[in-house]
């Protein structure tokens, strides 16, 4: 059976070499691993386009900015709102041409270039067996005893870390640095990226970890583990969305647009929840997988437009740095 699959794959690959149009898609590193959404996206899209979709994983924006107009990318998938301003100003991306009415995001979305495919919110995730009573609000968290230990990510090296400082900025405004100073004794450590933090949390090193409202879905669906929960704060949670766009330089613009249209189809949207452990951007909640419908989600969603975020970013990072360095 394995040999057969291999032979079939080999034949398909040779056929692809022969005459199929290639759609080159740049994606983040985690996308193309066997547990990422990449392989399923490739399979589903190739079945409908009769083309060869090739993922090129790695640093998305730095690479495309280095390549400029000579980039091979036709489509880029997995960008975040914190880089869209820079991406837009590079002039390397073209309008997506999609009807945005199917979107089910908790914020209004009218961007004509960057198309959302899934979203989540920043949240502190905890283990109910270890922390029976999670803080009920952000204020509660700031005032919690100092032996409640958190691990967070550095806003200078991690997207979720940056979202956290913007979250604190949105909740506390001018008092952000003060809030950080209050949080400081509870911050066990700061890591380079999300993976390091989450590893520390699952090893039992900290009580709460900065992650996403959707993290518990992984534990529910993949492990049947109901003990991981996101603490929901009435002050609201920062919204994080992942985006796709087509390049202005693509030599297969129709195919690139077909791919963007595919992102909004129900097929793609039903797959992405468990493929990327995020909430689909264009799928009503009753069609979400069971584990996702069980999630605690915030009623208030906080979000900065890319211009606001760009204007506040340095200030928010500096408040974090000063507040935690005291």
């Amino acid at each position, binding site marked *: 059976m394995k040999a057969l699959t291999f032979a079939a794959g080999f034949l398909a690959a040779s056929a692809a070499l022969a005459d199929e149009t290639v759609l080159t898609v740049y994606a983040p590193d985690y996308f193309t691993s066997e*547990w990422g959404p990449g392989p399923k996206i490739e399979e589903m899209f190739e079945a409908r386009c009769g083309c060869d979709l090739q993922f090129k994983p*790695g*640093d998305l924006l730095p690479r495309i900015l*280095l390549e400029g107009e000579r980039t091979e990318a036709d489509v880029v998938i997995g960008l975040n709102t914190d880089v869209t301003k820079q991406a837009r100003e590079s002039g390397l991306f073209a309008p997506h041409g999609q009807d945005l009415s199917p979107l089910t995001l908790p914020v209004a979305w009218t961007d004509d270039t960057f198309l959302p495919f899934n979203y989540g919110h920043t949240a502190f995730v905890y283990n109910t067996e270890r922390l029976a009573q999670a803080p009920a609000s952000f204020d509660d968290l700031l005032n919690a005893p100092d032996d409640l230990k958190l691990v967070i990510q550095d806003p200078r090296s991690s997207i979720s870390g940056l979202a956290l400082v913007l979250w604190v900025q949105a909740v506390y405004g001018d008092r952000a640095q003060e809030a950080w100073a209050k949080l400081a004794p509870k911050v066990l450590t*700061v*890591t380079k990226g999300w993976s*390091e933090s989450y590893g*520390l949390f699952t*090893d039992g090193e900290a009580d709460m970890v900065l992650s996403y409202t959707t993290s518990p879905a992984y534990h529910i669906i993949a492990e049947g583990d109901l003990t991981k929960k996101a603490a929901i704060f009435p002050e609201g949670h920062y919204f994080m969305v992942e985006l796709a766009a087509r390049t202005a330089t693509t030599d297969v613009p129709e195919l690139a647009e077909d791919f963007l249209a595919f992102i909004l189809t129900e097929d793609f949207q039903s797959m992405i929840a468990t493929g990327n452990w995020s909430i689909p951007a264009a799928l009503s909640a009753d069609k979400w997988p069971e584990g996702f419908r069980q999630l605690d989600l915030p009623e208030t969603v906080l979000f900065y437009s890319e211009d606001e975020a760009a204007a506040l970013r340095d200030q928010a990072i500096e408040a974090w740095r000063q507040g935690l360095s005291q």
Partner: protein
Amino acid sequence: MASRPVAVIAALAVAGLTLGPVAAVLARAGGWAALGPGDLDALRFTVWQALLSALFSVALAIPAARALARRRFAGRGLLVALLGAPFILPVIVAVLGLIAVFGQNGLLNGALRAAGLPTVSIYGLHGVVLAHVFFNLPLATRMILQGWLAIPAERFRLAASLGLTPGALFRMLEWPMLLRIAPSAFAVIFVICLSSFAVALTLGGGPRATTVELAIYQAVRFEFDLGRAALLAVIQLGLAMAAGLVALVLARGTGFGAGLDRQVARWDGQGRAARLGDAAWIVLVAAFLLTPLAMVVARGVPGLGQLGADAWEAARHSLLVALASTALCLAWALPLATRRGEVLGLAGIAVSPLVIGTGLFLIVRPFANPFALALPVTTLVNALVALPFALRILAPQAEAVRRDFGRLSAGLGLTPLAWLRLVLLPRLRRPLGFAAGLTAALSMGDLGVIALFGDPDRETLPLHVYRLMGAYRTEAAAGGALVLLALSLGLFWAFDRGGRVGAEA
């Protein structure tokens, strides 16, 4: 003798591969940019933690190496081989291993709690230094151990027949050797700690533990401020070269002249106090290094079954890269194995991997598709990064061979090839084995430079482990880390063993 043109080519290759990418990044940026807020704080912290880390690593390594040099016991060979292990683990895996021992819920605090004592926190400057000592103490120990083993056996025999006191023996034989070896071991460790990033951040506990490398990461990946990245990379390079030059000046001493080129047993250090002291050092060092490793193994076993075919394919790629890097690195190191070559070699670990990766991407891109070059570029950069270690290990012995046998060989009119085959290589066998083992193991564990060269079909094992962690597969990632540890150690052991066959070490 090793011919000069070859050495010049090897030196130019190092300079080109380190300065070239920096220049490419700078050219693309269109000029230097200013430093950001906090960059000076970061610089201060970087230098301070690197100094402390190098100081503690070398200071602790001296008694440990001495104990290992003069004791023979069951399991000594295994312990010496395991000393390579911490150095080669992916950073995140080693850090999780350390935290399993020293963390909030670690073994140490568990024991303290059971004894009714207050617990200790690993997070802070002391945690950063602890982790760097964990990584580098074994390396320093092995380097200094090589120095001890390179003292001609005749000197110890002479010292014994003259009835030298331990103090006199130390002054006459051991101190001159340490003076030659320790400063450059210090320099190598200082430079490697300069570019520390994830360790410093994770164990440093917050923004106070910011290093220059983090600022470079932020500049390249988040702000696309290549001018600032290039400036920071040059500052880092300057610091490293300064450390190298200081070591070059300090590391004087002329060695011991030629012996009969063989190893014999030692007569000194047989007193009761010396034995107990040595035993205590060996036990302490072994416990400090092996307990976190044992935790990595214990955490990894349950995840082994979860590894898929991709993991084994990634392991195969990593093995190929490691073997190719080793061959390349040794061929590169032999002509450069002199004191000046050693300083130059430091450049390989002094320039930020991210800047090298970005620069190589810019250089390669007009000529070839970077995606197809992911593995060759990794091989090349791994060889470059391992070069300073290989040089540090090979240089003292290579210089001694040149000094002791150079005139004789010139008198015999040996061709360069015959010199290499008959004189140099046989005498470098032990350091060559060690250097090859270290290079191979380092390349297995390396990540870093190819963030821009991604290719889904050419994944390496460390990358696979990181991707597993990124996809919530913590347990499978621990399994992958165990495979990585086993493969790296296996390679290290095989090469190192090969270098010691027939040598009484």
